[in-house]
């Protein structure tokens, strides 16, 4: 496979690499010691009112979620006009979207639900994929200090991936859970949806309820464990190699490869959960 880049792309990539390499040389020259601090810790902001589960937020998750949404909107504006003979960006997007569409079409039996399920699955795929990929490159992160404040670290940790926060993943999985039951009611009618909890006989009702609740739990914990575990592994092995920029192969394995596979699996399970309740 031959990759040919246009001139603006070359300039952009060159600038990014030059930035990383110059920071690395600066770190080597000034004798910067990479310290392992704040592993697995999050900057948590206490809202001024109240005590309780809803009174604390995780500001980096909010910020990075908005950054990734802006990134998706930016990408979508770049290929707005779809041509018959596709360019590079358009064909890349078309391949990804076509793959998701084929997955949906294979597993959903009722034709009128293919399009809405594809919209949900493709949105989730793009969001999770971009946030996993962002979490694999060194960048800016914030870790808490003892006094309740926070400290911004530059290039000694990866960018903060929103999917490494369990709240984000639980929200996505809960959304899929609610949407799958909504689709089920729409497809089968309320009566037969309610009756599906009493299959094959009425004593199985608690088992069916537990089985349904276990779906979003496993759905969200799988993504959370993979992304957060990968991030901590990159951090610890980068610490062993003393400089964070050096072990670049780790970004590739734990960030890009596992991140893409986990995004795909999250999407496939989304489609499977929704389509299993429709039939």
């Amino acid at each position: 496979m031959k990759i040919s880049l246009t001139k603006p792309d070359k300039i952009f990539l060159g600038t990014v690499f030059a930035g990383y390499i110059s920071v690395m040389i600066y770190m080597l020259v000034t004798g910067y010691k990479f310290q392992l601090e704040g592993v697995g810790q999050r900057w948590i902001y206490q809202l001024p009112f109240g005590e309780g589960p809803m009174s604390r937020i995780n500001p980096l998750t909010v910020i990075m979620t908005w950054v990734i949404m802006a990134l998706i909107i930016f990408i979508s504006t770049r290929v707005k006009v779809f041509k018959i003979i596709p360019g590079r960006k358009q064909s890349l997007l078309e391949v990804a979207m076509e793959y998701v569409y084929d997955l949906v079409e294979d597993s959903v039996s009722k034709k009128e639900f293919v399009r809405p399920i594809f919209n949900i699955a493709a949105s989730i795929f793009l969001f999770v994929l971009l946030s996993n990929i962002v979490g694999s490159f060194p960048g800016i992160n914030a870790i808490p200090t003892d006094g309740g404040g926070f400290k911004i670290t530059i290039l000694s940790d990866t960018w903060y991936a929103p999917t490494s926060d369990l709240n984000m993943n639980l929200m996505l999985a809960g959304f899929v859970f609610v949407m799958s039951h909504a689709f089920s009611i729409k497809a089968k009618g309320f009566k037969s949806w309610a009756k599906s909890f009493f299959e094959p006989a009425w004593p199985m009702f608690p088992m069916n309820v537990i089985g349904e609740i276990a779906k979003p739990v496993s759905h969200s914990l799988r993504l959370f464990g993979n992304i957060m575990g990968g991030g901590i592994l990159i951090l610890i092995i980068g610490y062993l190699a003393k400089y964070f920029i050096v072990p670049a192969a780790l970004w590739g394995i734990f960030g890009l490869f596992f991140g893409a596979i986990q995004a795909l699996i999250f999407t496939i399970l989304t489609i499977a959960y929704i389509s299993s309740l429709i039939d």
Partner: protein
Amino acid sequence: MEIGEGLMMLGKYIGAGLAMGIGAIGPGIGEGRIGASAMEAMARQPEMIGTLTTRMILADAIAETTGIYSLVIAFMILLVV
């Protein structure tokens, strides 16, 4: 350091190591079986290698879920509690 604190740290580290080590047995066996079956299928039908590799990686990632759960538990023992 008091002896109680030391015992607590001992329990934390041993517990995290055991959680991760024992929890990795099941996914290891499962992924090995998936890989073996995929190899057999590839040897039988070499023209389907592309499809089989994709499906194999997907099945691997689902089989490692329980290992990921024990990783989460080990991190919780080490960092949260």
